[in-house]
């Protein structure tokens, strides 16, 4: 099955710093989503981005489907950005709605 790898596994930033999170996947996909999991476990949708570039405030994401990777950019980080960021993909041939999640990047933003 498809493999999803996220890097870095852990990231510590000072408030105001910028960061880039990466997601590599091993096969073609028809769905790629980025999520932020808060301390209570809720998965918050950040982007649905199987290809292309999107921006939402201080966050932006780019997926290069032909090269099988996606990047999540966080600018001017705030303490509320802390938490775990997950990339999840559905394999192109799947047709089951099965999202495969990476192991996540744990972000800590210090004041």
């Amino acid at each position, binding site marked *: 099955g498809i493999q999803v790898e996220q890097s870095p596994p852990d990231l510590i930033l000072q408030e105001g710093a910028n960061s880039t999170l990466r997601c590599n996947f091993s096969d073609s996909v028809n769905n790629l989503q980025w999520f932020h999991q808060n301390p209570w*476990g809720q*998965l918050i949708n950040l982007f649905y981005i199987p290809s292309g570039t999107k921006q939402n405030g201080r966050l932006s994401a780019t997926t290069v489907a032909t090269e099988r990777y996606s990047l999540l950019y966080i600018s001017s980080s705030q303490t509320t950005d802390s938490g775990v960021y997950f990339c999840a993909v*559905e394999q192109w041939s799947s047709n*089951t*709605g099965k*999202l*495969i999640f990476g*192991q996540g990047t744990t972000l800590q933003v210090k004041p």
Partner: protein
Amino acid sequence: DAGVTQSPTHLIKTRGQHVTLRCSPISGHKSVSWYQQVLGQGPQFIFQYYEKEERGRGNFPDRFSARQFPNYSSELNVNALLLGDSALYLCASSIQDEQYFGPGTRLTVT
């Protein structure tokens, strides 16, 4: 609009017991998926239902079952609970490909 809702929020069960978790999708969404997340890992796919039919099943034993009702809500049932079933159980609904998650049910098996 209300998001995906799940009940109960927390649950404590004893080994060997049975548990039923419930999920209501976002209005208009016909597809519901279930995921299990153990501590320190990403969520793992259990099932997806679309229009009351099972569309996909993950690598979970037959002790796990689910169903979807005419109003598109769903139940996840787990029989003969094991300690290893302790996890956060997440439900997601979708209208096309993008999935939206509920707050989860935290199950502890003692």
